[in-house]
């Protein structure tokens, strides 16, 4: 199995390290010709969604990635990745890939002083460490999207078909269980 990691900006190396731990091959997507390589899964990492969204378009990656996700290739978005996959963003007019039936709330916990760490239940996995960095949460899910985790009454992880999103960063905590869940999807 080969996992492509979107490497336009942000914490992509952290995902690659977890994938290596799990014995999964990975490579980075930085420009259009990287899409020519064969891969069966995609991770969209944390970072700034404004930067990644802009580069997706300007480096001409947008349509190629969107169509792969729409045709059922499994994708996992953390933090900024969640925002890029969301159908809409409640507090921002920006729109990105819009493949997943969720409404994201950007910077929902405020500035860096609002960043936090906790442990909480993730359905199908158990209690896991969760690190939130200027994180979003999910205001609402619709269609067939399942809620996988809630923290303080807010939705922080969800799945729709082969699309998985978390508002937090398992790749920062060295816990491989969410990535294993993704690789088994």
């Amino acid at each position, binding site marked *: 199995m080969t996992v492509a990691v979107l490497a336009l900006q942000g914490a992509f190396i*952290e995902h690659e390290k977890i994938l290596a731990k799990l014995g999964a091959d990975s490579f980075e997507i930085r*420009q259009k010709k990287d899409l020519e390589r064969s891969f069966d899964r995609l991770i969209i990492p*944390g970072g700034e969604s*404004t930067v990644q969204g802009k580069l997706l378009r300007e480096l001409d990656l947008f349509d190629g990635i969107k169509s792969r996700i729409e045709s059922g290739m499994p994708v996992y978005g953390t933090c900024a990745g969640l925002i890029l996959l969301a159908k809409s963003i409640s507090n*921002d007019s920006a729109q990105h890939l819009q493949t997943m039936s969720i409404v994201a709330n950007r910077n929902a916990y405020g*500035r*860096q*002083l609002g*960043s936090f760490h906790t442990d909480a239940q993730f359905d199908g996995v158990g209690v896991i460490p969760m690190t939130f*960095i200027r994180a979003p949460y999910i205001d609402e899910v619709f269609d067939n999207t399942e809620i996988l985790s809630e923290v303080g009454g807010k939705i922080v992880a969800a799945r729709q078909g082969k699309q998985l999103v978390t508002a937090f960063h398992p790749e920062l905590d060295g816990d491989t269980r969410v990535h294993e869940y993704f690789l088994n999807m």
Partner: protein
Amino acid sequence: MSNERYELNKNLAQMLKGGVIMDVTTPEQARIAQEAGACAVMALERIPADIRAAGGVARMSDPAMIKGIQNAVTIPVMAKCRIGHFAEAQILEAIEIDYIDESEVLSPADDKYHIDKTKFNVPFVCGAKDLGEALRRISEGASMIRTKGEPGTGDVVQAVRHMRMMQQEIRRLTSMSKDELYQAAKDLQVDYELVKYVAENGKLPVVNFAAGGVATPADAALMMQLGAEGVFVGSGIFKSGNPAKRAAAIVKAVTNYTDAKMIAELSEDLGEAMVGINEQEIALLMAERGK
């Protein structure tokens, strides 16, 4: 600052990696920077080139001006305080800045002591010329490091020197035996534990950006190839002919820093680069502030 808070602060720097942090002086510039793909902005009253030209004492910016920029963008906002000026840092924390740069660009407030950054909940980035300086700042609580290239000059030579020096010293540590590492800790004037981390991991325990003198996409690519994890661009953007275009080009150059063909295209028709001053032509070496 709790250990958990320090980890969260290091984590925010990880999210900035592969990105460009741009100096801005107005909400309008901040919007241009965000639009161009900045992963964060540094809010300051005057960009370093103008601080250098104006002379006199350079201080923390007016909090009202910083708040104006915080309200103008959704990306993280950083601001500078003077070296050792913990009261300025307290003010920046009070207005919930995302990152404080304890910066040699401003006039130092203390010629001996840096801020005890472990007392703060907000993160700090600090400049360093070599590994010892980087690790000393980290032991004081910095959760991100940048080179201390000469700000406001458009001359990248010092940022290159600092990045090369750090990488070379890191590589040297990775080849040392344990007894040599004890001595290295003494030489570097830092904790053995920090030295041990660097020796085992071949990198700093925090994210390391390039800063100072970056003016072109090629400068940014150079710093990334030398091992920077991202780039600060100060005067280089808003002192140039076409800030929006240059900023966007530098952002793309950082993402695809090894693709010379793409960087060649990005470097076309950017308009005039900032004029710049050579290292030898400047009277004030800001990098010598704070050791």
